């Protein structure tokens, strides 16, 4: 501390303090929508109150809004559907991207470059832009209004393939050659040698995949129809519409927290892993 004081002359120090104060103020204002969500979800807001926007917790927390949310909305089913969709997509993706990533990283074959560019196409063509023809495809495959219909277009991931290609390239070939010399089959070599070594890449991809499909809205909205096929995001919008009309802001806050909460908690707990995987993959 002392050395620092000696290094900075007085006006410089006040300038620094001012900048810190400014940043803190900015971050606080930035966080108000989230703070409001936390406070309002457990706060008793009387009907017709003009004070719904208050950020002051009144220290008499109520769980009435959460109870209402579970009573009025089918949150349990929405959670189950969302978990099935996100985990289902991830399981298939992990297989497809490991195999294809290995082929692009390690093998020489005819048409490799052309195929590589064909894969690259999907990078910017996020499925939302293809909603119209993709919905037709899902209808044709008989998957309309089903959870597999929500999952299917994401089973292959160009991002994932590139990520795994990059990851495999950082692993020295010696490991594979040693395994093959020791009599491992190709499948064993992938499963027992490469996959464990490629874990950082797989984890990074998993976090991004889970986050983005948990948050996905437009596509599940397009390909499902019946209430029992709704995922959290779709359920939330239909649920919130009526709560908003009733100006039941505590309920809106609680329902939103129920949908966003799991990811916020996961992010708070595993911040480093989240940030690394966002950076690692670039595009969500």
């Amino acid at each position, binding site marked *: 501390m002392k050395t620092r004081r000696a290094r900075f002359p007085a006006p410089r120090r006040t300038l620094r303090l001012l900048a810190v104060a400014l940043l803190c103020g900015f971050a606080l204002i930035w966080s108000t929508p989230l703070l409001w969500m936390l406070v309002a979800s457990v706060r008793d807001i009387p009907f017709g109150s003009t004070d719904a926007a208050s950020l002051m917790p009144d220290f008499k927390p109520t769980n009435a809004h959460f109870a209402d949310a579970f009573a009025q909305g089918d949150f349990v089913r929405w959670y189950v559907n969302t978990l099935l969709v996100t985990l289902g997509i991830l399981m298939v993706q992990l297989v497809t991207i490991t195999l294809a990533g290995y082929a692009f990283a390690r093998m*020489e074959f005819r048409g490799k470059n052309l195929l590589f560019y064909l894969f690259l196409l999907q990078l910017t063509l996020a499925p939302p832009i293809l909603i*119209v023809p993709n919905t037709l495809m899902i209808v044709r495959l008989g998957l309309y209004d089903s959870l597999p219909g929500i999952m299917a277009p994401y089973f292959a991931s160009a991002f994932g393939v590139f990520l795994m290609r990059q990851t495999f390239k950082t692993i020295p070939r010696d490991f594979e050659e040693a395994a093959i010399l020791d009599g491992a089959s190709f499948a064993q070599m992938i499963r027992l040698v490469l996959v464990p070594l490629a874990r950082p890449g797989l984890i990074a991809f998993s976090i991004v995949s889970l986050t983005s499909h948990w948050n996905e809205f437009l596509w599940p909205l397009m390909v499902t129809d019946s209430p029992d096929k709704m995922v959290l995001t779709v359920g939330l919008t239909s649920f919130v519409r009526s709560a908003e009309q009733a100006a039941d802001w505590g309920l809106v806050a609680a329902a939103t927290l129920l949908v966003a909460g799991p990811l916020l908690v996961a992010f708070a707990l595993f911040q480093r892993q989240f940030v690394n995987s966002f950076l690692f993959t670039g595009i969500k």
Partner: protein
Amino acid sequence: MAQALTEAAILAPRLERPAQARRTHSAISTSLAFWLLAPSFFLLFLFTYVPILEALTQAVSLEGFGGKPIGYGLGNFQRLFADASFWKALWNNLVYGLGTVAPSIILAVVLGVALQEATRLNALLRTMIVFPVVLPLVAVATLFAFVLMPGVGLLDHHLAKLGIAATNWLGSPDTALYAIIGLSIWKNAGYYMLFVLAGLQAIAPELHEAAKLDGAGPVSRFFRITLPLLKPTLAFILVIAIINVVTQIDHVIVLTGGGPSDSTNIILNYIFQAAHQQGDSGRAAAATVISVAALLSLSVASLRTLERGMHYES
């Protein structure tokens, strides 16, 4: 024949054998590669290539009454270009794009530079700024439905304390698009900041030390060292930001549905409405073809940038 081969093998073992081995190896590896790539390729075929081709054929197919195809032509494009809503959506998307991309990237750079030192306070502030990134866009939208509520909402409630009168942010065609822009900046700036922080870490501290010794102040160091060296990072962020501006519309659907009077209607929402609400798949397909073409040219133009960004290990 066989003898000749053996002879050759004896005479030039070193030359011949590796070449032969390489050839068989590559034959095996081609068929293996085929099987490794088959699942991904098949799925991409079903859900990317076929849909692109389908959008193309649908865009140039003409339909009679009852959806029966009656021929091919550019009728769908003609109808699309004759639709004032389409041009309005294109213009809105441009305003929305500029209004979102530039401020969020500037904010990301300023915050990244301000918070780059690894202190505990900075870590906390960074977390606060990044939180909206993991929120579902629809959850952001439902939150902002309250934030932007005229009179009682979070924004107006606190602006009233400063003596600013209530505004119908989402209800007025003059402010609705800016409200949507504000929401998008809030949602995405933290994400871009993460890349800026990673980019800053890659700048050798010696450069700043040397410039300091030469008497360069913080401002000139920022413009002469930091900014030029961040250029690849910024190019990468720019590409993601543009993609986001075209492909993210959940908040528009939830909050405004493109209204009031088309003021927040952007291209993907236009496509969604044409296909889903107006049942005009030909016009939707024509608009899809145009968006796909735009995104494909972007991805071709930015291949290098994207691939470099793919492995931003920090």
